[in-house]
């Protein structure tokens, strides 16, 4: 598992442990993890430069998931991927119900104060299709079977997969396991 140049990273790139999140912006369980576990990881692991979080799409929930990912990447070009990520999960509603329609995603982009001409140009292009497809294939190769799935990789390359919206304690154990030299 590697961090590609187009993969958004939350936290310091030099943090020794990497948490790869295979997610779908329409996945309710991903949202559950975002609300309950991620804040603790950000506070205790990312802000302390112990870990970094890397987003990888694993789109299984429908066409609007694809749009949501493309919009997040388009926001990322203006340095606001993670703000858009937060906005998507915070506003998540029923799957393919229109909350992640192209029109709504543009509203989200506007609310973040993005340059809309630049955003639209990127969002309406096909430039992220290859990245989304690569991420999905990487997930399958890594044994991902559903969302969210996290793969935690330590400084020596040792990795532990954490499937599902598991609590902070599971991540603490996994990070400790991949950080140990034994």
């Amino acid at each position, binding site marked *: 598992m590697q961090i590609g140049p187009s993969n958004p990273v939350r936290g310091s790139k030099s943090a020794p442990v990497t948490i790869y999140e295979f997610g779908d912006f329409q996945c*309710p*369980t991903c949202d*559950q993890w975002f*609300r*309950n576990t991620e804040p603790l990881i950000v506070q205790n692991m990312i802000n302390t430069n112990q870990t970094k979080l890397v987003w990888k799409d694993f789109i*299984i*929930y*429908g066409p609007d998931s694809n749009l949501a990912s493309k919009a997040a990447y388009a926001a990322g070009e203006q340095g606001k991927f993670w703000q858009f990520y937060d906005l998507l999960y915070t506003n998540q509603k*029923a*799957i*393919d119900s229109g909350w992640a329609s192209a029109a709504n995603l543009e509203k989200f982009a506007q609310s973040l104060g993005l340059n809309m001409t630049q955003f639209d140009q990127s969002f309406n292009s096909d430039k992220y299709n290859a990245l989304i497809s690569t991420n999905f294939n990487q997930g*399958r190769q890594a044994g*991902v*079977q*559903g969302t969210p799935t996290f793969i935690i990789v330590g400084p020596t390359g040792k990795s*532990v*997969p*954490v*499937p*599902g*919206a*598991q*609590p902070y*304690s*599971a991540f603490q*154990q*996994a990070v400790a*396991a991949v950080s140990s030299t034994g």
Partner: protein
Amino acid sequence: MQQLQVIQVLRKPAYGLAAGAIALIFGIMLTYFSQFLFFFPYLVFYVPPEESVTLGLDFLTSILSGVVIAASIYGIRNLRKGGNQAKGGVAGIVLALVAGACPCYYLVPLLAVAGGAGGVLSVLGIYLNSYQLPIKALSLALLGAVAVSLERSLRASCDISAGQGTNNHLLRCQPSV
């Protein structure tokens, strides 16, 4: 106040144990699929604050499944003594298994990914995922209806008497008319 016949069945050690074992199996299965129980990479039981209703429904479904299946087995085993119980028993087991399987719709999107079936299974999974609580509530209602039906069936054809001086309650079924 007259005791419930289903409870009388469960007072027989074999059926009480069977009900407990079945409830435990269903409980583990449902909490696993609801992502409250994790086996990998570490054994973790975790209920997010907003999911307590789902956990409650899972527990009730598990307990009721154990009761309904054990009482249904009793009905089947008394086939020669009371035909109605046998019919009700088979129906009870089938319905309890269906009700228990309903909340396992979580498997559908996973199957779509694992099997590459995509399309139809994914759409079905997405549709079912949007109705998590109603599906679980429906399962519970189905089990409740089966339990009431079993109770009536047992009440109609069984004569219950308690063993004097012991805790063993004997449930004697008579041929149904």
